[in-house]
């Protein structure tokens, strides 16, 4: 069972977002980058399958040099190979990124292709299904449980108020949701072993793609803004629970027009 896990590198979720000078991107000064949290569940699922069934786990990242750090961390956790496609992923839209990843995946051993259900930050939830379409694979999105063996994958997909159990033929694309597993930390042994694995690097041109197509955006950011600062409303003393409860109900009825 071979897997490819696509890794997105994103600003730490603790980051206080500031707008950059161009008014279209965030100010990257002092931003700490992490592996997108949902990708950690994807990686853990792939490593567990490898431990059970054998095979390779290749981590794949597209972006500037700092992406190597995310790939290195993933190797330390148990991935066996890594490919870094160099390029300014920040200048591509989701479909541009998906085209790069799909072209790279074609040349990597895989039965399953994993993503997080969304890249934390841009919050698009687009790239995984786009790669599935570009490769002609089935997709199972927002997965909380997974079994794979013998050319078939069975996964639980989270939907509103329910869960679907879906079977698909492999190769297939899986996007991981929180709850799929409990991701492991890198062990010291893993960190040492990862240092011996060379990260393969390629350019967009090496994949047979034209940069113009990848960077020719179908979705362009016109502006990026912070939400208006909320001033905070009324604060009341809740030492008399009945009185507080009455005031809350009055507020909900009269101002929110609910109830």
């Amino acid at each position, binding site marked *: 069972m071979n897997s490819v896990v696509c890794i997105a590198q994103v600003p730490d*979720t*603790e980051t206080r*977002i500031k707008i950059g000078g161009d008014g279209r991107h965030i100010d990257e000064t002092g931003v700490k980058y992490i592996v997108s949290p949902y990708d950690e569940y994807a990686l853990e699922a792939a490593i567990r399958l490898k431990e059970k069934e054998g095979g390779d786990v290749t981590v794949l990242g597209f972006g500037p040099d700092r992406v190597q750090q995310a790939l290195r961390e993933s190797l330390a956790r148990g991935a066996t190979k890594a490919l870094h496609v160099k390029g300014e992923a920040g200048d591509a839209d*989701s*479909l541009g990124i*998906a085209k790069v990843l799909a072209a790279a995946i074609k040349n990597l051993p895989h039965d399953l292709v994993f993503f997080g259900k969304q890249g934390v930050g841009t*919050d698009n*939830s*687009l790239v*995984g*299904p*786009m790669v*599935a*379409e570009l490769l002609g694979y089935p*997709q199972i*999105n*927002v997965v*909380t449980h997974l079994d794979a063996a013998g050319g078939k994958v*069975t996964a639980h*997909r*989270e*939907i*509103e*108020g*329910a*869960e*679907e*159990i*879906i*079977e*698909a*033929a492999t190769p*297939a694309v899986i996007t991981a*949701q*929180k709850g799929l597993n409990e991701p492991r930390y890198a062990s010291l042994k893993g960190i040492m072993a990862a240092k011996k694995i060379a990260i393969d690097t390629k350019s967009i041109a090496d994949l047979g793609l034209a940069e113009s197509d990848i960077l020719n955006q*179908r*979705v362009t950011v*016109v502006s*990026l803004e912070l*939400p208006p600062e*909320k001033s*905070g*409303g*009324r*604060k*009341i003393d*809740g*030492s008399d*629970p009945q009185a*507080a*409860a*009455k005031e*809350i*109900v009055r*507020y*909900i*009825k009269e*101002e929110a027009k*609910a*109830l």
Partner: protein
Amino acid sequence: MPTVLVFCEVQDNKLKKASREALSIGRKLAEAAGGDLVAFAADRAAADDAGRYGAKKLYVTNAGGYNTETYTTAMQAAMEQASASIVLLGGTSNGRDLAPRLAARLNTGVASDVDRLEWTGGKLRARRPVYSGKAFATVEISGTPAIATTRINAFPAEESGGGAAEVVEISASLDSKTTVVETKVSEGGELSIVEADIIVSGGRGLKEAANFSLIRDLAQAIGGAVGASRATVDAGWIDHQHQVGQTGRVVSPNVYIAAGVSGAIQHLAGMSSSKHIIAINKDPEAPIFRIADLGVVGDLFTIVPALTEEVKKAKAH
């Protein structure tokens, strides 16, 4: 004459709220662009509702229950027949599953989870929250059709007073490499936080898992969904599908009640666009009070049960 096509989903013979909202903003875009509003569904039962929200035609396929591949093929057929310039999908699990697949097939642009839409200069402009609502990006979609998924609760559902939509049958291949073997409904058929008008959320202030019963009782009395902070989910007190905020869901209900939630930046990002925010917390300095419209400084263990009783009384009238 740009045509707007809206992907519709039916539940209990009625259109889902997300679909009614998408039709409503779709009608405004069609009016602005001087074009027609049409709809797609896998169920003829959608015709009355789709018409009521302004759709002239309803493209219907016999694809049955939701399946990514068969629905992609059917929607592609509808988009071609309608010559759609704009395609909107309500931001349900299925809408969000389908939109990227369609965009990749047609080599076009898609914006996810948008809360504002306008047709300007022959292009679709959308605003969408990024970094879980810590910032908003305005994007322009080029490529035809322009596709967007709409954030639930961001666009009011407004009827147009129209009659039933004309039903147009489309046939599409039912080939798929996936099969839905079973659908398991969550215990108690709980309301999802994404769709709810009212959310009652609990945080670490609840002290232990069993005390989520206070939150559930209030949510049930008020007819809302149960939300939770990341800390309580990570502690295993409640299932992840209740988590609000970054690594959970971004929500914007009419009323958001936070009890014992201090208001970490990741949580605030996920709910600060709620229309009416009520916070109950014993710490007067808790960050949640900075964004609360009504803040109550006090003990949630006495206030929440009192509120549940008060809500029941109000409902009984």
